[in-house]
């Protein structure tokens, strides 16, 4: 079985940029993706902070362009699901249901997915009123009332997006100010359809076969009450897709991969990039930058260790 120079796991902005740089460096590289390329960008309506795209770019278009850009320089993209990463001397072995893939270096760009609230009722009502994607499910809530949870950029953007469909959007936030970027917070505050419920937390999502209400608690005085609604949208951060790496590379308490400034993980020859990494800011531009660094660092590693 051939041993690749580099295998990139994941086809979001970090992985596709890593792949672009590796293809241009003429490395023997393959990118493995379990779904179709794009990652979480595919759940973004408009990307307004990708430098150079002054008018904004739709998430779909940006994902397509990143994929096409990497393909143009000869990147091979394959459909595969990785269950395990292990080492065989200096060679890394990636295990898939269809067999092992051997490589000298790895870039883990496995991304993250929306985090759950972790309250009763949530799991039971997923797809029946509980959603983690406003751009996907907003159109099901025309002229209805929805409750959103969160206070960051995603929560702010998605709340505003949902006002295109819903007649009323409540935003429940545990603090008394939003963490979202200023321009996004302004859009929330200026939107007449959005009402922010400050300093409140969810206790339960209620409903038999569909969401009927959320039970909330006011942190200031401890009062609990039911807020009737048709949908509950959860935007409380992300959780990394790193379960299969547990005990293999060092992670922080939430499971995000710890890397150095060159994106090197605790495992020799294994690099990580994008939203799966432990860091301050998860954005497309950061993911792309880290993808480029990871590939370059992998190249340097190959020159030093494998030549």
């Amino acid at each position, binding site marked *: 079985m051939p041993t690749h120079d580099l295998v990139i796991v994941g086809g979001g902005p970090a992985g596709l940029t890593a792949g672009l740089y590796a293809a241009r460096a003429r490395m023997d590289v393959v990118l493995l993706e379990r*779904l179709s390329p794009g990652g979480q960008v595919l759940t973004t309506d408009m990307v307004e902070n990708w430098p150079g795209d002054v008018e904004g770019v739709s998430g779909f278009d940006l994902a397509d362009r990143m994929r096409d850009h990497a393909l143009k320089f000869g990147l091979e993209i394959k*459909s595969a699901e990785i269950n395990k990463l292990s080492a065989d001397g200096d060679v890394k072995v990636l295990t898939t249901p269809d067999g092992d893939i051997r490589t000298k270096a790895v870039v883990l760009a496995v991304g993250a997915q929306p985090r759950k609230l972790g309250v009763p009722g949530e799991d039971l009502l997923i797809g029946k009123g509980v959603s983690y994607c406003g751009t996907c499910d907003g159109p099901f809530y025309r002229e209805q009332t929805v409750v959103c949870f969160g206070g960051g950029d995603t929560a702010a953007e998605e709340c505003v997006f949902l006002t295109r469909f819903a007649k009323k959007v409540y935003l429940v936030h545990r603090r008394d100010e939003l963490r979202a970027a200023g321009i996004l917070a302004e859009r929330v505050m200026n939107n007449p359809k959005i009402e922010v419920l400050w300093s409140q937390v969810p206790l339960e999502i209620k409903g038999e076969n569909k969401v009927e209400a959320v039970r909330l608690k006011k942190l200031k005085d401890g009062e609990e009450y039911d807020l009737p609604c048709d949908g509950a949208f959860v935007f409380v951060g992300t959780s990394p897709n790193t379960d299969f790496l547990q005990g293999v590379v060092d992670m922080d308490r939430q499971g995000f991969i710890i890397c150095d400034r060159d994106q090197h993980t605790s495992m020799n020859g294994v690099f990580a990039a994008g939203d799966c990494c432990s860091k301050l800011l998860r954005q497309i531009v950061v993911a792309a930058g880290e993808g480029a660094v990871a590939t370059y660092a992998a190249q340097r590693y190959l020159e030093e260790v494998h030549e």
Partner: protein
Amino acid sequence: MSDNVLQVSDDNFEAEILSSESPALVDFWASWCGPCRAIAPVVEELAEKYAGKLKVAKLNVDESPKTPGQYGIRAIPTLILFKDGKVADQITGAVSKSHLEAAIDKQLG
């Protein structure tokens, strides 16, 4: 688009899916939905893998709103496995191929 994936609508849902002799997997999707697009190649791979044993179909919820309404679908992608005209399993979100295979294998026995 794979030839193995059938396109169904409100008009032929009963004939193609509910009256189907073999179990059927229906992918409820829409053009605006990113995770629907992410999971599309997986659905095609499944159609190929289970050809002859499982009918694999897609239903566009924009063009055919009645059927998703009947099944209370409020998030997409939702994949429903039908057996003898009844819902045998229901999965929401862009899950992995192995997750779907496990659900299908359980119904096919």
